[in-house]
């Protein structure tokens, strides 16, 4: 895939070529010889870094293009994408290569703009200046005509945002998910910190005698705290270094998870000074914050107490602080487990939604007739040929053609009005289709008729609307025979049929008005020449076959090539795969929340195990006494397990309301889920309870195997 960019694109980013040269202004001029820049990854993976690629000619959409150079290593374009561009081509080559007419149309909005601010220029005044230019540019546009248009033009403004991490729109799209992941990571960090604090506490208590000796030998409290803090910091620093190694291995795993199925990862997970600094700083802060309390406790050692031999008292188990930290971990883990449960439930709900379409034995073939050189007047005949040739393939049942298909994240829309109802304008999406399209995607006709071969360019303009649009305009009345169209020409199309509400752009976008128009028909009011009408080009063929056909992709390629050798397959997928692609983000979030939930559970379990083990070790003599007094092994197991489960239970008691409260912060990312389902809560609670049980059972069993004679001898 290629991206069209301006001649100063690479210069704006301050990039240098890896080999050859990058684009310059003279390349981006109409009529200039067409050149392209190849991405470093494509050069390496497809051509093994062959230097002769530079200067060689490639054929792009039947036109010769010279490779002028290789983009720098690690440059993946101006946005985060699982399919970063393989080639960068000048914008001015678009009309030739892509056969599109909107490049110089001031009414069309299709470009992203990056700028480079001169040193010392303040963003505020610059924003004002650019806003004024945009207003000036847009003033003659028909979009801003009339009183309403002028009001809108007055409000039109530009917002400049830092471009260092890509296009703002993309960041905005993923912002909520990224924020959620940051919060989840923070919670996991908190659990890990609680664990570290517990370990340091245990260490501090175990070294009480050592500290007592030091105190008895004259060490000042300040000196002891200083020593323990230094040890904590050193430990934190070394842990931070070890953590970095784990982090880089983990980053690759996370990237593979996020860009699942991508051939190449569009991010270089190489060490950056900022990340290194942040990680080390965080580990040092953790060391100081969580090292202070244990250091203070150890420094409180009373030499006389600790050095007295043959203590007659039994040692108590873990301190309240230690138990409190375990409770905190359990509570936070539950919150994360509930989160993981909610996002998994969300994914399952979305995947099992009735999309009002049929995906079985359906294949989506994306094509670009424009790029193959087809002009608008040739299209009607071309479409008939396509339909005939594909029908000639044995096993092919229906051949649908459309501008785009359901669940491919595409949307063409405009305002609509019913003729005779001027006050009621509704936003709706539209798709242009051929007669067999509805059958091919499995959309059911519920009233009127479908399109026929008679609905040609010259025939009366007709439309089929979906149930939602019918309700929006006509409530329960019969819509057939009414006319709808753009607000300035509401009589554009006569409604001849009504179909079910098939989900198009996203499963989350339901109850959305849609209308369908025959492939070659244009609104009555359209004034531009048909030759320049981009809307006449089909973007996809939908094939319905009688049975699963393994060879359908090769048959499709062969059929298209037999029609026109330049007509290539842009993308071939089963309908099922196309639908599954729409759940990628939801799957990623579900996987990541489960990963973090699992990690939190593991940390909390390790924490509980640690504290319980410590308790058992401290209470060895007590356990010995109890056993000497007749306690059975089972009663010892129960006693230790009860204590562990009590901590987990208090954690649950705190975690459950917190999890219920936190749902409000993630419900915007969930589909029709506003509360924690009883099943999700039960599974989360049971998971934590089982993990806590196992974490407690191991030391409990160890406690039960205490040899009372030996335990008493230790006293």
């Amino acid at each position, binding site marked *: 895939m290629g991206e069209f960019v301006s001649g100063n694109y690479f210069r704006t980013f301050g990039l240098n070529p890896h080999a050859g040269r990058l684009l310059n202004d003279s390349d981006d001029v109409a009529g200039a010889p067409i050149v392209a820049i190849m991405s470093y990854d494509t050069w390496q993976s497809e051509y093994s870094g062959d230097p002769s690629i530079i200067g060689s000619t490639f054929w792009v959409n039947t036109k010769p293009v010279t490779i002028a150079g290789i983009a720098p290593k690690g440059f993946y374009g101006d946005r985060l994408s699982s399919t970063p561009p393989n080639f960068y081509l000048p914008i001015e080559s678009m009309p030739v290569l892509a056969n599109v007419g909107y490049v110089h149309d001031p009414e069309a909005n299709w470009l992203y703009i990056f700028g480079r601010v001169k040193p010392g220029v303040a963003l505020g005044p610059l924003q004002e200046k650019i806003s004024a230019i945009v207003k000036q540019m847009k003033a003659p546009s028909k979009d801003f005509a009339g009183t309403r248009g002028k009001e809108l033009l007055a409000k039109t403004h530009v917002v400049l945002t830092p471009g260092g991490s890509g296009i703002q729109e993309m960041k905005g799209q993923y912002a909520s998910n990224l924020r959620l992941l940051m919060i989840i990571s923070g919670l996991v960090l908190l659990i890990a910190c609680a664990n570290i604090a517990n370990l340091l506490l245990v260490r501090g208590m175990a070294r009480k005698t050592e500290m007592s000796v030091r105190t008895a030998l004259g060490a000042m409290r300040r000196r002891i705290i200083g020593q323990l803090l230094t040890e904590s910091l050193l430990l934190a620093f070394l842990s931070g270094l070890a953590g970095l190694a784990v982090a880089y291995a983990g980053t690759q795993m996370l990237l593979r998870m996020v860009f699942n199925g991508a051939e190449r990862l569009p991010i270089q997970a190489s060490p950056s000074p900022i990340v290194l600094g942040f990680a080390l700083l965080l580990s040092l802060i953790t060391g100081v914050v969580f090292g202070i309390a244990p250091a203070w406790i150890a420094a409180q050692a009373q030499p006389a107490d600790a050095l007295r031999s043959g203590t007659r*008292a*039994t040692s108590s188990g873990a301190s309240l602080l230690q138990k409190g930290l375990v409770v905190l971990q359990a509570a936070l883990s539950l919150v994360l487990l509930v989160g993981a449960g909610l996002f998994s439930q969300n994914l399952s709900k979305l995947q099992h939604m009735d999309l009002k379409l049929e995906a079985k034995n359906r294949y989506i073939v994306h094509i670009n007739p424009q790029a193959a050189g087809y002009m608008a007047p040739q299209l009607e005949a071309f479409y008939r040929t396509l339909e005939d040739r594909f029908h000639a393939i044995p096993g092919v049942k229906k051949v649908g053609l459309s501008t785009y298909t359901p669940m491919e994240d595409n949307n063409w829309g405009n305002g609509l009005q019913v003729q005779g109802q001027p006050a009621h304008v509704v936003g709706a999406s539209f798709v242009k289709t051929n007669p067999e399209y509805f059958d091919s995607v499995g959309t059911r006709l519920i009233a009127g008729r479908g399109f026929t071969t008679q609905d040609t360019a010259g025939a009366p303009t007709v439309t089929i609307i979906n149930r939602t649009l019918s309700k929006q305009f006509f409530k329960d009345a019969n819509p057939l025979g009414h006319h709808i169209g753009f607000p300035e020409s509401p009589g554009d199309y006569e409604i001849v049929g009504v179909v079910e509400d098939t989900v198009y752009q996203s499963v989350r976008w339901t109850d959305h008005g849609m209308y369908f128009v025959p492939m070659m028909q244009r609104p009555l009011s359209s004034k531009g020449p048909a030759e320049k009408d981009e809307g006449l080009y089909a973007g996809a063929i939908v094939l319905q076959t009688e049975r699963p056909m393994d060879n359908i992709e090769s048959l499709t390629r062969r059929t298209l090539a037999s029609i026109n050798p330049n007509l290539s397959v842009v993308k071939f997928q089963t309908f099922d795969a196309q639908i599954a692609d729409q759940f990628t983000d939801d799957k990623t979030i579900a996987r990541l929340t489960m990963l973090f939930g699992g990690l939190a559970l593991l940390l909390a379990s390790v924490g509980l195990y640690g504290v319980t083990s410590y308790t058992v070790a401290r209470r060895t003599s007590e356990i010995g006494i109890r056993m000497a007094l*007749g306690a059975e092994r089972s009663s010892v197991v129960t006693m230790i397990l009860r204590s562990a489960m009590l901590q987990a239970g208090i954690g649950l008691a705190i975690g459950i309301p917190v999890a219920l409260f936190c749902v409000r912060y993630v419900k915007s990312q969930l589909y029709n889920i506003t509360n924690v389902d009883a099943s999700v809560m039960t599974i989360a609670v049971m998971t934590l309870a089982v993990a806590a049980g196992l974490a407690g059972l191991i030391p409990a069993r160890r406690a039960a195997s205490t040899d009372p*004679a030996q335990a*008493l001898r230790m006293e």
Partner: protein
Amino acid sequence: MIELKNLERSFRAGHEELWVLRRIALTIREGEFLTIMGPSGAGKSSLLNVLAMLDDQWRGEFFFEDLPVHAMNRKQRSDLARRRIGMVFQSYHLLDDLTVAENLDLPLTYKNIPSKERQALVADTLDRFQIVGKKDLFPSQLSGGQQQLVGIARAVIHKPSLLLADEPTGNLHSAQAREIMELFRQLNAEGTTIVQVTHSETNAEYGSRTIELRDGWIHLDTANPPA
């Protein structure tokens, strides 16, 4: 009451085997007050642990009231010990976070005795040992002698037929030690068989029979003096 035949006990110390009890043959009759003496490391406490059924790593034969302990599994031994044996420790071994009454109640809770019955037993014992006023105190609030008094009360609350005491006065001063030994004498007079381990000749005099261990062997038994 107790018959030990050819009983031996050893510990592994690296590649070596360290013997602590060698071919012990000992009969303890019901109502006896036996004192085990000997230097440190002679095997006194090891023998007491065997008698208490806290240790089951020994070899040989051990009959308790004609029941073959050597043929019992660990659970059966625990059950028997729980019902028939009480134990007093040198370090008292009271649980610090339990009150005096709760410490007394502790062995009863392991015998599945109903709560009301347990309360009655605890009340009787507090009364018998004249520590009613101390029932809500924690061990750290008691003197050493008082703690050992509670320790003995706890050991006999379930009316064991055998009371084992490991250096019961080792941590007490002489006046307290005397009181404790008088208590043992009284319990023995009431029918409880007592086996005590002690270094003190004075304490040994409270007993009816003394055996002396040396390097794990029975060196002297006043019931069977050397010819």
